[in-house]
């Protein structure tokens, strides 16, 4: 189920009725059951994957209590193998089979293996990372294992962030469960502000940009290079509004239900360097990769070359996390190179020169570098991505005669709105979740009026509904 489905609203109504009517452990159970129902709406059989993964990690983490040495390590190994195995089977098996068969055909051996053709379970990349981080944290002794299985099941399946994040840590979420107080006026109003901002970003901005982006990336041979530029810039905005919009809605819903979910985007396009960008874009994934991959690999403490290699490994795997396709690997490689080079230049003369550059120029340069990466990310395949970038760089390519859609002016206006909101809200991002911006300062009738009017504007100006981009991951 998506937040944009009309079905979501009766679902939310039922959740809120349950939250109002029950308290304590019964409320935790109710929220868990509703979260499973939310997940089942996509493809019911995959509920068992979620349940199986949760049960296993709950049991393994409990098993680590009081154990040391090999037993503890074995339990972690089982968790890692099963979680990554699940991900490999459902997300990467087809890709792997295709690569093996391509090699087989090149060697004259024909197709060697049969691709299993599993339907990708929605949100598997997100909840697998959550369960993995939980068992690793318990293994490291950074947190105690959850006692109540319902608490743990709710942590893994909490519906606002189940299918597209933010990836939350058990150490952050589990302690909130016992103390959570849903539908408290202040929290609800702050949550509603986040939800409205999220819906505006997704439905009004991202979904209205999609019709200018999709045709160009789907059939680049028909469009001119000018259209490529416009579609690429628009996609940078679309993916930001789509994904951060989802995160805002998720955080807002969580806030209404009495939970705090951490900020996932902190005005990333106002970053002056690629390192800052990754501290502000999909923060929960960046932190996950940093804590469970980059630092265990040695981070930036083992010399420049090792830093570069660690960054490359981390970001290639980060790219693969997004999707089993070459363009995601190349996208990860691109960011790995950028982060690695930026890390190695720290403290050097070149790094110092960059830091002294006019800040808006740094922001612009970072945006351009990130946007180049988005071409790989959005292109249907690697060849198309490379060819489009080549055409934009002036190389002969596949471009055709069709100019950008004249209504792109409208999209440009929207882009201006995004940019202004981006700058205006930059320093308020933490405050919105904590206490809201407007609603708590005005009277009750004004609150109702403002929420109603904003809802009306969002409904009226919504673009043709598109699935959240990150649902495919």
């Amino acid at each position, binding site marked *: *189920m*998506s937040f944009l*489905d*009309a*079905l979501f*609203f*009766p679902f*939310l*109504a039922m959740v*809120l009725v349950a*939250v*109002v*009517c029950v308290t304590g452990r019964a409320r935790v159970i109710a929220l868990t059951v509703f979260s499973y129902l939310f997940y089942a*709406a996509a493809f019911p059989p995959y509920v068992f994957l979620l349940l199986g993964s949760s049960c296993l990690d709950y049991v393994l983490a409990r098993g680590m209590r009081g154990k040391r040495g090999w037993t503890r390590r074995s339990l972690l190994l089982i968790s890692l193998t099963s979680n990554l195995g699940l991900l490999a089977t459902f997300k990467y098996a087809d890709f792997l089979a295709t690569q093996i068969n391509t090699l087989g055909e090149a060697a004259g051996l024909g197709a060697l293996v049969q691709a299993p053709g599993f339907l990708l379970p929605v949100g598997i990349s997100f909840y697998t990372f959550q369960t993995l981080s939980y068992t690793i944290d318990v293994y490291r002794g950074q947190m105690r294992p959850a006692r109540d299985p319902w608490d743990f099941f709710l942590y893994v399946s909490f519906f606002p962030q189940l299918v597209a994040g933010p990836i939350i840590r058990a150490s952050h979420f589990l302690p909130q469960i016992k103390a959570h107080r*849903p*539908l*408290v*006026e202040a929290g*609800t*109003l702050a949550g*509603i502000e986040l939800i409205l901002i999220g819906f505006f970003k997704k439905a009004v901005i991202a979904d*209205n940009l999609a*019709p200018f982006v999709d045709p160009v990336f789907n059939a680049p041979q028909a469009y001119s290079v000018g259209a490529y530029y416009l579609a690429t810039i628009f996609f940078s905005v679309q993916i930001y509004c789509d994904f951060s919009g989802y995160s805002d809605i998720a955080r807002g819903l969580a806030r*209404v239900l009495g939970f705090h979910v951490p900020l996932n985007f902190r005005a990333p396009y106002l970053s002056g360097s690629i390192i800052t960008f990754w501290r502000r874009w999909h923060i929960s994934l960046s932190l996950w990769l940093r804590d469970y991959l980059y630092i265990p690999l040695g981070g930036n403490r083992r010399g420049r070359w090792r830093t570069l290699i660690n960054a490359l490994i981390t970001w290639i795997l980060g790219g693969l996390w997004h999707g089993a396709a070459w363009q995601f690997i190349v996208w990860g490689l691109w960011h790995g190179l950028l982060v690695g080079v930026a890390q190695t230049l720290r403290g050097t003369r070149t790094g110092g020169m960059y830091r002294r550059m006019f800040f808006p120029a740094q922001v612009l340069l970072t945006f351009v570098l990130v946007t180049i990466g988005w071409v790989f990310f959005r292109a249907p395949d690697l060849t198309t991505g490379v060819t489009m970038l080549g055409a934009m760089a002036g190389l002969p390519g596949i471009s055709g005669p069709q100019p950008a859609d*004249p*209504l792109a*002016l*409208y999209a440009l*206006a929207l882009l201006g709105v995004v940019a202004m909101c981006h700058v205006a809200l930059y320093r308020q991002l933490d405050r919105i979740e904590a206490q809201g911006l407007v609603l708590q300062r005005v009277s*009750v009738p004004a*609150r*109702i009026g403002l*929420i*109603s*009017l904003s*809802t*009306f504007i969002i*409904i*009226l*100006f*919504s*673009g*043709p*509904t598109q699935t959240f981009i990150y649902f495919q991951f």
Partner: protein
Amino acid sequence: MFGRAKVAGLYLFLPLVLALMLGEVLLDNDRVMRIVAAYRPLAHEVTLPTNVVRQMQAVDARLREPASNTAPRVAFIGSSSVVNGIDVDVIESIWRAEGMKTEVVNAGMTGLVAYELPLLKHLFGHESLSCAVYLYNRFSFGDRFLGTVIGARWNTVEMARIGGLARLAQPHHVSTGFTSERFHVVRYGLIYRTVFARAALGVARPVPYPYDFYPGSDVYLSYTGDPVQASDTDWLRRAYVVSAQAGDSLGYRGLDRFLDIAAERGIGVLVAPVPEPDLTRDNRYRRGLSFAQMDTRVAQITEGRVLSDESLARAAIAPLEANARLFRDPTHLNREGRSLYSVRLAEHLLRLPECHS
């Protein structure tokens, strides 16, 4: 508990209801509908989902307009073959010459199939509507559900009545259809947004011609056929196969139910095939199919329930279908074809007094 319920009711549910009501109050009135229809973009300027809403809104706005001098009205319903195949001006001028004041509404909509006919019953409630002419394609009686249109063309009760809910819809389709059916701003939001945005950018202009087809000279495109037959899972192929071979389908049930609704409302109905070029008979969707059974099945359903249609029957339109030069593409009539067909329709309907009173 009361406090939490109050917070949820006051700040979550009440504003949602108020927002939807605001849409009804501000937008669901004839004047706004007329303005939006008058300034709507052309078909090729918008994406398919917006075009579907755009056509629906324009037809709705047109049917809401009071008929001049309480003249009776005839609506032509069907797919893009009707949108592009009916010239309202030609038909009305022939009728005017005969002293008839009857107005014509081109209620064709892209991809409209027979199971959707009862879903549009809210459009056909105006008392001035004397006749509805349903012109079907060879794919019109299929079972396949077109997800793109449910936000605009939907009626939950009627869908359930013809057995469509259980067979076709996913849960979110039903909820999307239901909300669009109930709330004006949800149903027509896409076209309002487009027209408002164009107005804000200063590029909104009245539609240069009232229908979807370009009234100027059309270019004849020769069609050389498709080398490969479409897969049976293809939406359009499947629609052709079911229409041609099935005795019972959602499409046939939709037609049957539509005739009941029309009878209840005292609207005369005429059902006939719309011309489709013979040269596409072996295209990737139609290859290997015979449609004689489909025409027979339609005749069975409509027997005794519709107005005479002899001069519009398959045999009568065969010369039009055989003349490839009357089509502007593999599906749609061009200006000459549209004109010839419209004359034929006008002359036939002249002989049906039920449509003119």
